[in-house]
């Protein structure tokens, strides 16, 4: 999958091409998502007005992002007053080093982790394992992916591409359990392993869905209860969160929690929505002695600095845009080669990891807009794909392609030349020599898998002219009679 030597765009091309012809896998992914849309529509319909709720969510996120400095400081002040500690990490390495240092300082032996895409983003597990710490992913899907040695396939449904027999084989191989095709039995196998992990861990690492400024809390949304246990039992809790996850007020969650659930899974509320405002307080019987929040920038400020696309940071990572994306469904999550897959990943990855290397993701879209339609916080996702394409072309135009479009616009600005060209050669034929033999060659690209329409007799303009002439002469003869 991730062959290091290959540039991302080449890897994408070959992986996407392979997976889009992998019929069984595509079918499995479609099957896994088949109930999602129904559930989501049903739950969405219980809202008095989903669109207005969405506009509110967009407005609140806009407010949060456009005063991000103020809200981060407010969080910090409230959170540290309650004994929490905030660490600000500019990049992956700084975040990793801080967490490693914490582990060392506290003689940590075992670490349990609940789902955190930021952890994937900074390759935290690899760093911890390299230093000899045992790390167990506690979310079932993440656990399966960890056993499999594969990154998550989808940032909300990490192992949605796997069939039960594959998971059974994996458990059999890695854990020595008996084979079964019953999802419940498979879940119980993981349950037994993971319950021990919580009890034994001395450090729990989580992500966070929201940073709540006015009360200095982080909020975690999950269905399984694994995050509750991850941050409840070990003596140190580290939450690694992107700085964009802010909401101004605790009361705003009354909107965001139901919207996240509805868009994410079609539930009206996710199983556990928990807000944590510090380590164990006086009078409480348990909870971690230390609670560290690590704010991760890692180029988020680069995206923030682009007012046109700033709203891409409104994302609450519900995964809805992946669930409805026909590209995602056909090429699968791994082809992207990114931490954040699907439409939103294609929008933000170029900002996080470089436009030149990741612009191809914005190109690999039919711009159908299903993502934008579904997004609960109103991000114009597919328009941002267009913005990325424009920025990429401006930054480093592809020579052949630029020439093609220059020729194209030259032709299209000259109606008489255009008419002349259309008369003697179909449009494609005229431009074809420019790209023949290149990967841009439309004829080869098209006819490999699809037929081309048969050329009609005469263009529309010719027929319209004839039609008008016939009408006129009819009127003429009519008038003469």
């Amino acid at each position: 999958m991730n062959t290091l030597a290959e540039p991302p765009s080449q890897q994408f091309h070959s992986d996407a091409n392979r997976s889009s012809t992998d019929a069984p896998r595509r079918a499995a992914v479609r099957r896994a998502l088949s109930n999602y849309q129904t559930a989501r529509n049903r739950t969405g319909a219980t809202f008095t007005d989903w669109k207005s709720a969405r506009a509110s969510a967009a407005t609140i996120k806009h407010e949060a992002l456009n005063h991000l400095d103020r809200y981060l400081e407010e969080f910090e002040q409230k959170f540290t007053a309650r004994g929490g500690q905030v660490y600000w990490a500019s990049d992956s390495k700084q975040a990793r080093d801080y967490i490693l240092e914490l582990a060392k300082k506290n003689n940590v032996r075992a670490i349990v982790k609940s789902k955190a895409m930021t952890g994937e983003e900074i390759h935290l597990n690899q760093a911890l394992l390299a230093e000899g710490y045992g790390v167990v992913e506690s979310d079932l899907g993440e656990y399966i992916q960890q056993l499999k040695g594969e990154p998550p396939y989808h940032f909300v449904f990490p192992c949605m591409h796997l069939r039960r027999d594959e998971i059974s084989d994996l458990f059999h191989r890695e854990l020595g359990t008996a084979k079964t095709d019953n999802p419940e039995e498979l879940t119980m196998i993981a349950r037994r392993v993971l319950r021990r992990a919580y009890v034994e861990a001395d450090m729990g690492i989580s992500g966070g869905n929201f940073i709540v400024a006015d009360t200095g809390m982080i909020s975690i949304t999950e269905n399984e209860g694994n995050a509750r246990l991850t941050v409840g039992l070990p003596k140190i809790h580290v939450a690694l969160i992107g700085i964009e996850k802010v909401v101004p007020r605790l009361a705003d969650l009354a909107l965001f929690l139901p919207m996240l659930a509805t868009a994410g899974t079609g539930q009206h509320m996710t199983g556990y929505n928990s807000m944590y405002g510090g380590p164990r307080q006086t009078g409480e019987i348990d909870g971690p002695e230390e609670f560290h929040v690590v704010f991760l920038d890692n180029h988020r400020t680069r995206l923030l600095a682009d007012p046109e696309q700033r709203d891409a940071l409104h994302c609450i990572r519900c995964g809805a845009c992946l669930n409805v994306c026909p590209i995602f469904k056909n090429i699968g999550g791994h082809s992207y080669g990114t931490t954040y897959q699907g439409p939103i990943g294609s929008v933000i990855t170029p900002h996080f990891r470089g436009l030149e290397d990741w612009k191809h993701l914005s190109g690999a879209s039919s711009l159908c807009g299903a993502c934008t339609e579904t997004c609960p916080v109103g991000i114009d996702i597919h328009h941002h794909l267009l913005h990325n394409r424009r920025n990429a072309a401006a930054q480093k135009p592809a020579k052949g392609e630029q020439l093609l479009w220059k020729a194209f616009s030259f032709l299209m600005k000259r109606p008489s030349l255009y008419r002349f060209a259309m008369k003697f050669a179909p449009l494609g034929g005229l431009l074809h020599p420019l790209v023949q033999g290149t990967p841009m060659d439309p004829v080869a690209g098209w006819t490999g898998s699809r037929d081309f329409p048969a050329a009609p007799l005469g263009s529309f303009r010719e027929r319209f002219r004839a039609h008008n002439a016939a009408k006129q002469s009819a009127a003429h003869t009519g008038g003469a009679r």
Partner: protein
Amino acid sequence: MISHQGDREAILGRVKEALREPAPLKHPAERSAGGEPTTAHFREWLPPVGAAIEERLDLFRKLSETLRSELIACASVREAAAEIASLASAGGWKTLALHQGELVDALLPLLPASLTILPLQSGYDKDQLEACDAGLTECDLLVAQTGSVCVTSKNSGGRVLSVLPPHHIVIARTGQLVTDLTEAYQSLAAKYRDGYPSMISFITGPSRTGDIERILVLGAHGPKRLTILLLP
């Protein structure tokens, strides 16, 4: 103590610099007179809840069913104790973990003598708690709009009693049922004016996962069952 804060100043500097040019608001919501988007506004766009207590109860009951929470109305503490006793004998429980609280304290003397009680007073042994058959807690609120039980580290026996044992039993009063999440947050804000507990958690049904082929399985980690005993 804050040992060090990393790149605090650098990041805040970058944020401020980035925000020099404002971003357009492409999908504006209605705003209050003060120009701030109002939180009151979204409330009316969320799933509606009836105003009367019966309507709230009906919705809570309906959602509990969908969520596979077991909602049992009990006329008295004695009846609630009897429910626990029958759950205990049906489930073959040996140990029940619980915490101190007004309702739990009232229940305690009425519970079957055969049941070993693990009280979480000032701490507990993790292994012992992990081995319990059920956990009994009180809660702060019930939310009609979402069918949720709101527990806190202060009033529900800490952070994990409500999520580690395989069966979670909540004892609550009907008066604790609020309409929606907005009211829940208002009520929490009023109650904890002097400081929130370190954890507030809205529990909506028993632990669940859909990670294998998106097929629903209950009890991924903690409670396979959630029973709510509702007193008048």
